[in-house]
């Protein structure tokens, strides 16, 4: 049976992990290569490395980071953050990424999805969508709007329409972040996730709002997510992906166990 994926996400700046998941014994490690392998060994189904380096000099560091991180990693490895051209994507693939994630650049230049998909295959292209509801109204999930520039710039695009266009252009997966839920730890926006997931045939990865294992179970069941991004959840009661998946299995969610 196809399982629901738990994806560990590392936010990286200038070659160091600055946010995301901290293991009790690795709190000060900050080394993406070390943390990525630790997460894979702790049962994560995939690893996402999100580069939040703002400077041009930092981009060279990213390639080195991707090389070092991919070396010991034998689960799918996605790299996102600041990829704006096909050539930039190519250098990230050469460094060892299996998939790239593009966000603002895809909105600015949708042809980028086609170009990368045609060169490297659709399975290698994740389109990341940051979406926010306009109101609390009924059906506002379907009218949620896409934002770019780290959530600062409204685009006027509906998330479900943009997800459909991304799919049509050859995206292999959608990484959907609810800006309303992000950081709340009150649970994923299951309605938004379901609205997008039902609009496309490609997998949707849910992100934003996780606080408990039950939140993951909800986004898989009612949110119809195919995968979910785990960041700040790994702390006290849920130590790692394996522990999270053990909880999900008890709640009837199919997960990769043992892992």
């Amino acid at each position, binding site marked *: 049976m*196809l399982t629901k994926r738990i994806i560990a996400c590392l936010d990286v700046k200038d070659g160091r992990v600055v946010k995301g998941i901290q293991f009790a014994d690795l709190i000060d490690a900050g080394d993406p290569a070390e943390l990525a392998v630790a997460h894979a060994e702790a049962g994560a189904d995939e690893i996402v490395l999100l580069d939040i380096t703002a400077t041009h000099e930092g981009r060279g560091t990213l390639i080195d980071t991707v090389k070092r991180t991919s070396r010991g990693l034998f*689960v799918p490895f996605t790299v996102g953050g600041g990829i704006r051209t096909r050539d930039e994507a190519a250098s990230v693939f*050469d460094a*060892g990424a299996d998939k790239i994630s593009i966000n603002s650049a895809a909105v600015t230049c949708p042809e980028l999805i086609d170009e990368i998909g045609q*060169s490297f*295959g659709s399975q290698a292209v994740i389109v990341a969508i940051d979406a926010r509801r306009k109101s609390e109204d009924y059906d506002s999930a379907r009218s949620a709007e896409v934002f770019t520039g780290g959530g600062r710039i409204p685009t006027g695009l509906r998330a479900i329409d943009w997800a459909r266009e991304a799919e049509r252009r050859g995206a292999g997966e959608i990484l959907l972040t609810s800006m309303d839920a992000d950081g709340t730890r009150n649970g994923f926006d299951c309605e938004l996730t379901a609205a997008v997931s039902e609009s496309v045939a490609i*997998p949707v990865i849910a992100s934003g709002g996780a606080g408990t294992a039950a939140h993951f179970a909800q986004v898989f069941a009612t949110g119809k997510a195919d995968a979910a991004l785990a960041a700040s959840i790994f702390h006290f009661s849920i130590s790692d992906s394996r522990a999270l998946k053990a909880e999900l299995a008890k709640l009837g969610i199919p997960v990769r166990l043992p892992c």
Partner: protein
Amino acid sequence: MTSIASVQIAVVDYRAGNLTSVVKALHALGASPEVTSDPEVVHRAGKVILPGVGHFAATKFLADHGLTMAIRESVARGTPFLGICVGLQWMFEGSTEAPDVPGAGFLPGSCERFVIRDKVPHVGWNSLSVREGSRLMRGVEEGAYVYFTHSYRASLNQDTVAVTEYGGAFASAVERDSMMGVQFHPEKSGGVGLTILNNFLEL
């Protein structure tokens, strides 16, 4: 002895996506693969791996560059061969993804798109039901999980050595003598995948 003659493992590059992960996994297992599009190198290699992600039409490159012939002769001599993903699909007569591009025809039948109400592509970790006696699957436990990403699949046949369910059963691994194929990505399937790659390296 020329350097070509000493190639142990040829990883065939047919310009279909990213070979970095396959090569990296082989290195981790202590092998020294050579990535090549040269039929001579393929012909003389001790083992041949045909990876592949993307569209079946990309396999046209193999026929156009003499690689189909090189692989065919190598397989006929009993050289171990492993097709991965589109590489497995190419071992069959063809795929409805690109009806005009013939496969190698090592195995009977054609690959077809999933016809299900679930999502296509089939992406993620799914389980294997393993046939006993497979050399490729040696040490892989029943129900072990591996990573898939594909929209087309091969039907079950007498050479199927692992079965996976997604809207019905399909062939997730095939094996006939030293000719083998996997629909999943062993290089992305953690310890289970490395076990399978290592089984191939030890043939």
